[in-house]
């Protein structure tokens, strides 16, 4: 899964040649053997490296604050989201919905790696979510639909249909 994400990221960044990744441990943490130094271990580390290599530092945030927020979300993705149980999912969606109430993107006011990787991570959750629940977490759905339509992001994942209008009223149960 992580390898597919990295390959999609490469495509998005317009990288000409695909890197060769190996994995380590039973959690299959990706490893990138670097010519210039020690190997890079971990999805977040490699992703940040790729962004810098592609001369797209804005994907990591353009101010000190937004850079910190991007890193925080990337950490969140790898630590909380990936090892999420069914009970936790509701909390995650609720928190995310509250956070996205007044934001278009997760960090700063622009598209960053935080959006990319949280989107990849939360995709299977959204696919399984009933339409009524998607309407309940309306901000998450709105952000999700925005990111999945972003040119070049959604390589390895099927699109999730999002309806234009609400079909469940507030009284529905």
């Amino acid at each position, binding site marked *: 899964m992580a390898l597919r994400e990295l390959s999609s990221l490469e495509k998005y960044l317009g990288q000409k040649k695909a890197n060769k990744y190996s994995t380590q441990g039973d959690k299959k943490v990706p490893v990138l053997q670097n010519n210039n130094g020690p190997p890079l271990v971990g999805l977040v580390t490699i992703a940040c490296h790729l962004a810098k290599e592609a001369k797209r530092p804005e994907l990591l945030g353009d101010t000190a604050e937004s850079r910190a927020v991007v890193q925080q979300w990337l950490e969140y993705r790898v630590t909380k989201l990936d090892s999420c149980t069914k009970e936790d999912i509701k909390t995650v969606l609720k928190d995310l919905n509250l956070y996205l109430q007044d934001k278009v993107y997760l960090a700063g006011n622009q598209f960053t790696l935080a959006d990319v990787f949280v989107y990849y991570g939360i995709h299977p959750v959204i696919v399984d979510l009933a*339409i009524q629940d998607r309407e309940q977490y309306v901000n998450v759905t709105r952000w999700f639909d925005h990111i999945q339509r972003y040119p070049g992001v959604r390589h390895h994942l099927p699109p999730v*249909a999002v*309806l234009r*209008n*609400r*079909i469940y*009223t507030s*009284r*529905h149960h």
Partner: protein
Amino acid sequence: MSWNSLNKHWEELSFPSFTAGATEEEQQAQSKKALKKQQKEAEKAAKKAEKQAKMASEQQSAEEDDFAKDRYGVSAMVQSQQKLDRELVRVQDLTPEKADQLIWLRARVHTSRAKGKQCFLVLRQQQFNVQALVAVGDRASKQMVKFAANITKESIVDVEAIVRKVEQKIESCSQQDVELHVERIFVISQAEPRLPLQLEDAVRPDGEGEEEGRATVNQDTRLDNRVIDLRTTTSQAVFRLQSGVCQLFRDTLTKKGFVEIQTPKIISAASEGGANVFTVSYFKTSAFLAQSPQLYKQMCICADFDKVFCVGPVFRAEDSNTHRHLTEFVGLDIEMAFNYHYHEVIDSITDTMVQIFKGLRDNFQTEIQTVNKQFPSEPFKFLEPTLRLEYTEAVAMLREAGVEMGDEDDLSTPNEKLLGRLVKEKYDTDFYVLDKYPLAVRPFYTMPDPSNPKYSNSYDMFMRGEEILSGAQRVHDAQLLTERAIHHQIDLEKIKAYIDSFRYGAPPHGGGGIGLERVCMLYLGLHNVRQTSMFPRDPKRLTP
């Protein structure tokens, strides 16, 4: 009684005799015990005597003061002893127009509450209730007020009272502008003091119950004590509306020239397939309870009745414990011959349904509002002419919403419900028809589509996203019918009589059937079909 006088009394008591064998000390101990016992008994006797004297004096004063003795009490059981020429007024007719009139009425005691020298009663008759007052004065005595306050809830009483206008509206009663001042009150039928459920709890909305920590009554308790549960204003409203549905069904179809027929319920072969049918012992053999009047409706068409309908029980031995399945329900079935196209049948059925909806909307608003008080819901919306979508369109709408399904797949219940929401959002209607179902998912007697063998001339109708009617053009050709039966692997011997009815000239025809309880449930926006079935039957319930 004072301690001194008690002592004196004790001294006057005689001591019991002792047996010769006891020692001096034992004797002494025994006598002390006996003394104590006698002392206690004497105390008791004294207290009792005092109490009796007090009661006697009270009673005397009571009897002395009760001038209203003849104006209240428990009547002898009505065994038709006499023919009283007395008019009883209905609670719903108690309006300011009757102010200052002296009237008699018979109602149930909904509540009775004493407050000092007054007793407030709420008298109830079906959906209507009115406040009544028994006050100590020149017409009512203290004892009469006490009697009124002690009448058990649900008792049936005869009341003579003067109707009085009130300045402030009585919000808690249906008759808000008047109050009764009671002259005479008699209990005709007394209710036992402990009721299996309280009526106020039974009409309390679930949300309110949770918020205020008050009791509500769960469904099983209601169904176990159905007689009392049916007395609530909500139940009265639901079943009056249901009666209205039946009435409107009959009237609309009769106006369209339909004839009402009665079909047998004990049959020799399962009509819809063998799985869900009840077997009954029939003398030396066995028979089945009809799953639908399908076969007989069609035979009537072949017998030249042209347009028929029937209202009767339907028995389905489906072990489904859901909110919308019953093992016995009332089926309202229609069958009619048509001229050239089965859409004539669809139009007739949808027009009937629309007439029913209009009739309910125009004549049963009180009942709808009463039900909504306990079970809030959106009002039922429909379009004229009725919306008709094709199956392929529906599949496209579902796919657009992210559902994956094959062209010839049947609609699962969750997909039906989702489709209902999509249709509501797009067309703003709670009632629509889905036409041209795939042939593979319909029964063997469904006429295939002439231009596409994968589809059929069949249709379903939905209310609030749930199916209420399944219908189709029927195969009226004996040969084609035989082919379809063989294709569905049905034993031809079992349906020989059915196939034979089409061998001697049969007109093209179609129809459909609805479930009365389900239609009522969905019209009112309720969530369980047991709420609209008076004495429901399901796999777990056979009584009351």
